[in-house]
């Protein structure tokens, strides 16, 4: 077994964050079954090491652009679990006042720019955020998360080119979980080497084991530093896997159970927990303590969402345009 990547406390914190996302989403699935959460719900279960490794490796004033599979990123960015939960309950206390739901979490305070349900839709946005930083002389990184399915969209290629051409501080984080809905990577890409695509735009690219939270963290720290100081884009491909179906509507008939099981063997949460157990003082009680912390937060989030008021229907039209036009 490999040595622990970090000191005991830091490893425990990584486990705690992965557990937090895992339990949060398991609960979401359950609440979906109860009809409390509706719409499309895309779970990140299995992929937690990517967000847990990458998001906290950014600075507080960096920006994050994500997809519809973004609960984990949102939690890690610091959006309170209670306002995320309330959003999914469609309540007025939700981070988007019930307008967005699971696929559209936004938070200005943490520079979390969504929550985008158009595949590839976030990439040009990230390019623009970085352009604004560059033009205004700010040393910030815009981290853009997207699935490998997005790589087929024109928006991906146009964004790669712009970011490289204008030398913009974007950290492209491709979460390659091998399937875009039911379409496997090799059934949708003539060139399945995603790093090569980025490199063809002269963007430095690295492939990272997305099931290894420390590898993700180290790669992101290094890449973000490079983007920040070098003022140019970097592309990271995280190899990962989603355990659950694409969404709550997906019968998941396009992959073999053995394949799913094989990836589960490498599950990031178990891997690091077992490593901790084997190598330092960390036992069932310690783990249970994490479970308790996580479940307290979760219970509180659900109670908050339940107790919150729905948006008044009279406010249906708010926030389409600014309430008042600027004085000219």
């Amino acid at each position, binding site marked *: 077994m490999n040595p622990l990547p970090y000191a005991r406390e830091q490893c425990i914190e990584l486990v705690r964050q992965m557990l937090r996302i895992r339990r949060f989403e398991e609960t979401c699935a359950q609440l979906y079954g109860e009809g409390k959460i509706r719409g499309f719900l895309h779970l990140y279960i299995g992929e937690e090491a990517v967000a847990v490794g990458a998001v906290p490796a950014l600075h507080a004033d960096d920006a994050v652009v994500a997809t519809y599979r973004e609960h984990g990123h949102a939690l890690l960015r610091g959006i309170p679990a209670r306002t995320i939960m309330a959003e999914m309950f*469609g309540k007025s206390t939700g981070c988007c006042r*019930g307008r967005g739901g699971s696929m559209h979490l936004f938070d200005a305070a943490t520079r979390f720019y969504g929550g985008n349900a158009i595949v590839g839709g976030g990439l040009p946005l990230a390019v623009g955020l970085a352009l604004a930083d560059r033009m205004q002389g700010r040393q910030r990184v815009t981290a853009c998360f997207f699935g490998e*399915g997005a790589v087929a*969209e024109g*928006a991906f290629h146009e964004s790669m080119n712009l970011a490289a051409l204008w030398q913009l501080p974007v950290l492209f984080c491709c979460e390659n979980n091998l399937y875009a809905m039911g379409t496997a990577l090799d059934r949708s890409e003539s060139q399945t080497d995603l790093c090569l695509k980025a490199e063809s735009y002269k963007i430095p690219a690295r492939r990272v084991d997305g099931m290894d939270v420390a590898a993700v963290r180290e790669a992101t720290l290094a890449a973000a530093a490079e983007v920040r100081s070098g003022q140019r884009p970097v592309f990271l491909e995280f190899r990962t896997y989603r355990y659950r179906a694409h969404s709550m509507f997906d*019968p998941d*008939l396009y992959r073999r159970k053995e394949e799913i099981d094989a990836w589960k063997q490498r599950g990031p949460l178990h891997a690091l927990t077992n490593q901790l157990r084997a190598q330092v003082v960390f036992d069932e009680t310690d783990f249970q303590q994490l479970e308790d912390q996580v479940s307290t937060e979760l219970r509180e989030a659900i109670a908050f969402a339940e107790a919150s008021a*729905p948006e008044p*229907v009279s406010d249906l039209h708010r926030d389409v345009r600014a309430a008042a036009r600027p004085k000219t």
Partner: protein
Amino acid sequence: MNTMISYRDAMREALREALQRDARVFLMGEDVGMYGGSYAVSKGLLEEFGAQRIRDTPLSELGFVGAGIGAALGGLRPIVEIMTVNFSLLALDQLVNTAAALRHMSGGQFHVPLVVRMATGAGRQLAAQHSHSLEGWYAHVPGLRVLAPATIEDARHMLWLALQEDDPVILFEHAQLYNVVAPLAPDAAATVDIERCRIRRAGRDLTLVTFGGMLPPTLAAAEQLAQQGIEAEVIDLRVLRPLDDATIGESIRRTHRALIIDEEWRSGSLAAEISARIMEQAFYELDAPVQRLCSAEVPIPYAKHLEAAALPQPATIIEAARRLLGKQEAVTG
């Protein structure tokens, strides 16, 4: 003997018939094959017709819609599925700038026999990037024929007729209709065309004009109005471009009042176009100004109660109909 069949299954039967009858027909789109279609319309077709004719595409709407245009130019009869009208915006360029314009700008030398199917509409709490009704955007464009099958018969039989056209046809399938089950008569094909609207319910007091996903709530409202002694005529547009002015006009000449129910936003909607045409063509037949009931002018919100409030509902249709008839007192039941 009538068979009970869902809208989804009727659509699949239509695809199957087209693939069997015409070797030039093939289906392509995201997850139409192995996954079975995002709304399960094409489920089982890959096994039956193989990967050449049930063609999974990468996520590249502009690319594969454009490829559909090229394949049509090359002698095939492609059916392209786009998951949802919101995603069709990524392909709008190919549809408007090429498919719709090619016959005209080539001086009649080229034409594009392409059928594009897509889901549309709200009602499932999918929020602002999956729920819109943009049929009118397509109906705005010369060179396209735009269809909105709202019944089992139309779902089953419009596709084949669309494939007989020598120019592009856009077919909108409202996501709320897929699970509707209704009887289908063996000779239903005879009742389907892609030129005229259909009167789904006869009535003398006012005309309710609607299409697509708004047909069921409009018919429900008409039934309740009947219980209140108001006989509404319900017109299902079916063909959103070109509009069948004649049938609408005839109905107005009988009822003298019109309410248009349209899930699009009101500004610049099909409802606006129809209203203008009634004004132009039947103004002196009207006993009251034409009324419109459309979606609230907001990106469709996620929360159930907000989404419901944004969309026309049987209750609001009844209310608008009664107002049109000058009956504004509170109604119960």
